[in-house]
């Protein structure tokens, strides 16, 4: 050997619909199924309506800090549409779309952000993780779940999500690296919405793409237009199938833009650029999908109105359920600490109950 090339890599970017909803290449079969595409559009609209309502609840003191998905709806709805009940989501705080698709209820999500652990006692997606707030942990958990699945020789995919900012945490890398070594069935969705609270992507990394971070784990990395639900769904489906069938892990970078504040506690006008945001609005995922539907005569203003009304009703119903949840009793601080409360802690439980006026 002298000076030789010992490894080479390419990162591909996938897009099917441009910002005007025009196909940029031959579409996958599902994209030609207008029922499917309408239903994806409705899911995205529901998520957007749910977010807006939750924001409003927060502003009126009925909700805690909440992170919306405005502009990123195509991601969670896109991969969520590829999952079966057997698959596992290991979410972060901005995974509302994927969780809803997987059967977590709006009420549960409201309950969680409303400051009640009960919100993570999912009634349906019983193996999905609770929302991960400490950034990066979920990546390693997803690999752990996938390892259990692998040991048990099951055919189930694990999907986890992280923001582009979160990829700077060591856990992101540790989690994808072990997934590579062990060939685990995980799909790592990296949602590049350009911002980590106030920190722009160029301060997170010198990389041209986040997909290339996969190269450090020796695994496949793919970039998609995260505002194009066809691209997200198509690549996610490929990766999820691969994960289920022993094909190993994939990193998917979805390029998108956070059109809302980071959370209700944030004020993005302190740091973002209005022009850039205005531009970004032109790329947002719902308009493009609607244009595509309309071009295929699969959507009308009346459909839109009907859908909005229906979604509003669904959201309203969830909010009512949420508001009807009784305030958790103080015993709940103790009853799920361990399977059995230690002797030394029992008097504390009694004190807490007594001070709360003896509930339970």
């Amino acid at each position, binding site marked *: 050997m002298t000076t030789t090339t010992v490894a080479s890599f390419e990162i591909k970017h996938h897009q099917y619909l441009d910002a005007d909803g025009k196909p940029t290449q031959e579409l996958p079969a599902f994209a030609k199924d207008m029922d499917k595409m309408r239903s994806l559009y409705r899911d995205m609209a529901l998520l957007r309506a749910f977010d807006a309502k939750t924001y409003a609840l927060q502003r009126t003191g009925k909700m805690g800090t909440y992170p919306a998905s405005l502009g990123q709806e195509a991601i969670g709805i896109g991969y969520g549409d590829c999952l079966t009940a057997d698959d596992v989501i290991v979410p972060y705080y901005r995974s509302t779309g994927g969780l809803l698709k997987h059967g977590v209820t709006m009420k549960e999500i409201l309950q969680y952000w409303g400051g009640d652990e009960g919100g993570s006692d999912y009634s349906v997606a019983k193996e999905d993780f609770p929302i991960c707030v400490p950034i990066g942990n979920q990546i390693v958990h997803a690999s752990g779940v996938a390892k259990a699945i692998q040991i048990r020789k099951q055919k189930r995919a694990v999907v986890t999500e992280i923001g582009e900012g979160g990829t*700077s945490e*060591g856990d992101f890398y540790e989690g994808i690296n072990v997934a590579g070594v062990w060939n685990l069935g995980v799909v790592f969705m990296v949602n590049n919405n350009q911002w980590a609270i106030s920190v722009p992507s160029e301060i997170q990394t010198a990389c041209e793409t986040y997909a290339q971070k996969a190269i450090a784990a020796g695994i496949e990395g793919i970039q998609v237009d995260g505002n194009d639900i066809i691209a997200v769904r198509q690549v996610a489906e490929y990766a999820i199938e691969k994960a289920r069938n022993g094909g190993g892990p994939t990193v998917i970078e979805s390029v998108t833009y956070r059109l809302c504040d980071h959370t209700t506690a944030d004020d993005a006008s*302190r740091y973002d650029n209005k022009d850039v945001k205005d531009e970004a609005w032109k790329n947002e995922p719902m308009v493009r999908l609607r244009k595509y539907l309309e071009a295929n005569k699969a959507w009308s203003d009346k459909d839109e109105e009907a859908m909005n009304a229906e979604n509003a009703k669904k959201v309203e119903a969830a909010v009512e359920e949420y508001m009807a949840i009784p305030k958790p009793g103080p015993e709940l601080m103790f009853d799920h600490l361990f399977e059995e409360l230690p002797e030394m802690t029992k008097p504390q439980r009694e004190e807490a109950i007594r001070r709360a006026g003896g509930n339970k």
Partner: protein
Amino acid sequence: MAAITLIEAVTAALAHELEHDKEVILFGEDVGKNGGVFRATDGLQATYGEERVIDTPLAESMIAGLAVGMAAQGMKPVAEMQFMGFIFPAMEHIVTQVARMRNRTRGRLTMPMVIRAPYGGGIHAPEHHSESTEALFAHIPGLKVVIPSNPSRAYGLMLAAIRDPDPVIFLEPKRVYRIVKHEVEDNGEEYPLEACFVDREGKDITLISWGAMMHETLIAAEKLAAEGIDAEVIDVATVSPIDMETILESVRKTGRVCVVQEAPKSGSIGSEIAAEIAEHAVMSLLAPIGRVSGYDTVMPYYKLEKQYMPTVDRILDEAKRIMEYK
């Protein structure tokens, strides 16, 4: 001289040191343009530039490790952890490097740094945003752990922390970031570290607290006074190493003690104070040592946080139980 809040006092102290010591460098997540999620560094990047007030990538182990590298070069890094709940990725650097570098090199390389973090409950924050884990750091030799309870102390203790030649974990009780204002003169005068403050003199019982809980404790003391119980109130301020002399002196006088803290009770700062008293002043005690604490359970999400955190009532009940003990 202006009346300012605790967080404004933090900002003022940071600005003072940036202004007067070019080795002082601030960094962390969102501390630059955004001025921190609580605005503790508001305006500092605009004034002191992007090389002195730096937005970092999102990685706490890296933040602590960068501070180690910069401090070893003689700079004075002031690193922010966005919330104390996110300090744990940095734990390895804090325990094995920050706290030990001076010792590991017999004084050749030192760690004149501050790691700041907002901490504690009571603001309806999401999960992992409300814990009080100061005891973990207080148990590590080589660290100083400082917690201001009001604006003047935030200013004076922050100055002292930055100027201290050794590493300081500086925990800011975010529940009281904005609830009181003090007249604080921005004169660069520091308060001593490793010194308790006696905030109320009294002869019947010693109430010991720090940080946000000082507020409930002082209110409780006033209520006790109304009932004829004369409480001495001590703000520990530097919870490691603790100025035990001041505490022991008070206990020898009153014979009765109650520590008030937000953290879980087991293995807490309150436990350490009680143990020291049990070693050095046990025969002065006229009653058991009380610890009004968070419960030994996970800090709950916000719907239950009020039930978790000590209240004035709990302090009063415990103080009276101690007073009535025979």
